């Protein structure tokens, strides 16, 4: 999957944004579901759109995908207003809805051929090309009904790549995937980024795909809490901390300090299991990392397991005893553990600090 051949495409912040959401408001009944949501996504970025269930992610995404008209505000994709030019915008985006369905009684190839025809794509080779790109070529004659969840997700990605869109909009692409499928999607996203695609993906679990994101936006109760490149947000927060340490008024810290995004008043944001209890440990393990991940996945007190490079990142709840237990479990199954490093993810730290929660020690 990951090859040395992958060239990381540069993120072009000097170009106009590929996605530009500006002052979006949306109301359902008497409830404001979106309240002045603004953010920019630059060409080549992977933007993580993160917030709890019901925060307004899907609503924002459906506005971007020309499926809903906002009450007010604009979304521009590739410089085009989505409400004014929906047809052109539809040709430039690939949208994968959350809980998307597939046609069951049809083969993978037939499924893609249908969408190629529906898009009126003037080339027969495109189906083979996307099959190869998403690595489901070996399934082409299999019925869609018999595919696993992860394979279906890759099929969806293949579908939205058919018309070669510049911008990919993925709503919860990794929710309810097993660790292996999640890793595969992650790799696929990086491949797509290297092909020059701009990607926006949403998630209600901060850690899910965060390590592939170059920028994030955090939304809560329909308001953007913070958005921008991860390192910039981290830097700003560090400045803010320093300013606070010097005894400056917190109010001196205006909205601009976070790249134009206002800081939400107070946030009680729980990411799946309570954020405050979640910890991360990085384990360096000899042997088949994926097999090791499966060993741990779903165990008591373990929230998620990811393979990152040569190490295993395990999100868990509990104290140090739990770490010892994890190591013991791996050793028992015959995996050599050669390093244990407890760490809080950068993004998670950013998130907690941005939302005013107490940071946890042991971080960067």
């Amino acid at each position, binding site marked *: 999957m990951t090859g040395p051949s992958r060239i990381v495409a540069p993120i072009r912040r000097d170009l106009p944004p590929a996605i530009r959401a500006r*002052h979006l408001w949306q109301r359902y009944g008497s409830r404001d579901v979106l309240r002045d949501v603004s953010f920019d996504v630059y060409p080549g970025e992977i933007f993580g759109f993160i917030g709890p269930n019901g925060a307004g992610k899907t609503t924002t995404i459906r506005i971007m995908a020309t499926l809903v008209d906002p009450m007010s505000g604009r979304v521009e994709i590739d410089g085009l207003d989505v409400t*004014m030019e*929906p047809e052109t915008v539809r040709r430039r*985006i690939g949208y994968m809805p959350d809980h998307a369905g597939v046609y069951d009684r049809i083969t993978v190839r037939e499924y893609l051929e*249908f*969408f190629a*025809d529906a*898009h009126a*794509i003037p080339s027969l080779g495109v189906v083979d090309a996307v099959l190869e790109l998403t690595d489901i070529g070996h399934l082409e004659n299999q019925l869609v009904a018999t595919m696993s969840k992860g394979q279906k997700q890759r099929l969806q990605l293949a579908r939205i790549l058919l018309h070669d869109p510049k911008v990919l909009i993925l709503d919860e692409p990794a929710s309810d995937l097993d660790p292996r499928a999640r890793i595969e999607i992650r790799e696929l996203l990086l491949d797509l980024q290297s092909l020059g695609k701009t990607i926006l993906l949403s998630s209600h679990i901060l850690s899910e795909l965060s390590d592939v994101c170059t920028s994030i936006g955090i939304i809560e109760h329909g308001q953007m809490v913070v958005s921008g490149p991860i390192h910039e947000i981290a830097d700003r927060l560090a400045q803010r901390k320093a300013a606070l340490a010097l005894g400056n008024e917190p109010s001196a810290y205006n909205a601009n300090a976070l790249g134009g995004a206002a800081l939400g008043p107070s946030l009680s944001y729980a990411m799946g299991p309570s954020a405050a209890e979640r910890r991360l440990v990085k384990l360096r393990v000899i042997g088949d990392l994926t097999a090791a991940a499966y060993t741990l996945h779903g165990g008591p007190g373990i929230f998620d397991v990811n393979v990152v490079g040569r190490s295993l990142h395990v999100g868990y709840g509990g104290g140090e005893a739990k770490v010892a237990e994890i190591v013991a479990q791996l050793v028992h199954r015959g995996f050599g553990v050669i390093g244990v490093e407890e760490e809080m993810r950068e993004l998670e730290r950013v998130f907690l600090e941005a939302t005013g929660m107490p940071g946890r020690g042991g971080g960067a």
Partner: protein
Amino acid sequence: MSAQTGIEVRDGPTSGRLRDRVRHRVAGWRDEPNPLWMREMRQAARVQVTPIALAVLTVLMTVLLGAIGGIMGEKRSSPADAGQALFQTFFSLAYFVVALIGPALGANTIASEREGHTWEAVLLTGMRPEVVTRGKFLAAYTLIAMYIVMLAPVGALPFLFGGVTPTEVLFAFVLLFALALVAVGFGLAVSAKMQSTRGALVIALLTAVPLSGFCFSIFGVGGAEFARGTWGDTLSRGPIWLPRAYAVAPFNLEYLLYLVVVPLVVLALPAWFLYETSLANLTSVTEDRSFGLKRWHAVSSAICALLGLVPLAYLAPHESTAHAFAPAGVGVLAYAIFAAYLFATEPIGASRRMERVLEGRSRLRRWFGPGVPSTLSLLRWTTRGAVFVSLSAALLVARVRSSVSAPAGFPFVVEAACIGLWGFYVLGFTEFVFGLSAWLRARASGGAGVRPILLAILFATLAGPWVIAAITGLLTSSGSDALIVAALSPLHVLTHTFEAVTRGTSAAQRSFAASSISAVTYYVLGLALARVGRRRCDAIVTEHRALLADADARLAKEDEAAANAAAANEAAANENAEAAREPSLGDPRSTDRSA
């Protein structure tokens, strides 16, 4: 190009001649079929249930027909009678099979995509709603056509007995295929509106069962009576009379009218309506989704007005023209209520996008465009036109009749008074209906609830006065006076005023006056409601436009500020760059700084 058929290159037509263009078109249908239809067919090929259901249906029909044939044989009827009976039974059953399976197949189409969360993917491919509707329609129609074809051998059974000609059977099958168009279209139209397959299926069938029974008794049983009255006993008594009528009726104006025009209108007008409804429900609310329906409305209101004139052509010498004119008015009235209901949830004004799209279009196109004011005006003028046409035709007929054979009928003045009153009542009441619906729509924010309220009010105005009249009649025990209250219902004109005026009874003047006053009241009320509704809509549109303009201005200002900031940054960067280069030129300031 089609990936599904694997055909890559298609050349254009070999020449601009009509024959080549048609040939190219036909080849296009073969080489680049509707993608949705193609996919559905591929899916259907994998369903094992379809062939089983087809086989079971065929066997059942065969057994049933065999049994009927056997019974007829026992009773020693002639083979020709048995053949005719089998023919009638088979096609009556086939009619109901098509009338129920068609909507069921249609109902399954779009709702199932919505339910299975595959719909948005289809929508975002950029396929036009027309293409989607046609693809889904073709898929369901292909299936039902398979059912009909499977039944064909059973349908040919009556031949063995005689009494049925091959042309008759052929026509009957053609009619079955034509009926399937409407049946599938009906299911599709329901499906296009619904979110769940089960809901679509339930609604489609719940409507199709009584509707098919109703149509069968009107056009089958009632039609057979009418046809025997027109063309004599050569036609069978059974409900499947039309195929033989095509074969035996003499070709004249009546043939054209009853066997060509009426069946065409009865099939084509609903089919077109169902197509446009499906299309409207598949089109985004911000588009001009009711344009197609408005086109349909313009044509169908004209056709309805013309069909309403048919009774005038069949007046017996002793009959009154006013009575023959009554159905035309009822038709216009009923149709107007239907149209008001149909367009009751029209958007208040055009969306930002539609406004731009319609900017350069003709006035006529904008008249058919979205928004309550233009819809109101379209409804009013088409109805006024229909009333005007039928009213003047009726007056003309009355005038001609009175000058040709005055003594048999009523004096022209009486006829004209009745026709004029009824025409004006219809006009006043339809104005009221349209004004009311515009006013209700202007008050409801999203259009929700407009339809039920509209229907409730209209029902109350049509039936309410009778109830009140009945109650007061009972209380005062002077029935005929109390009935004046019922003049508030348009039906009163037909049931009482006509009667009173033509008989010249003492109550005639009062009844006539009460009806006239009611008509004027409805007319004025309708104008007032329309005015208020339109004003309100205009205000909402103006406010909305101002908000949009304001938002535009703010966004533009923001853009400008960002551009200025970027320019300033760039300038600063340039300065820095220059400053960095300056030390080599020996600038003291730079040296200072580096020190």
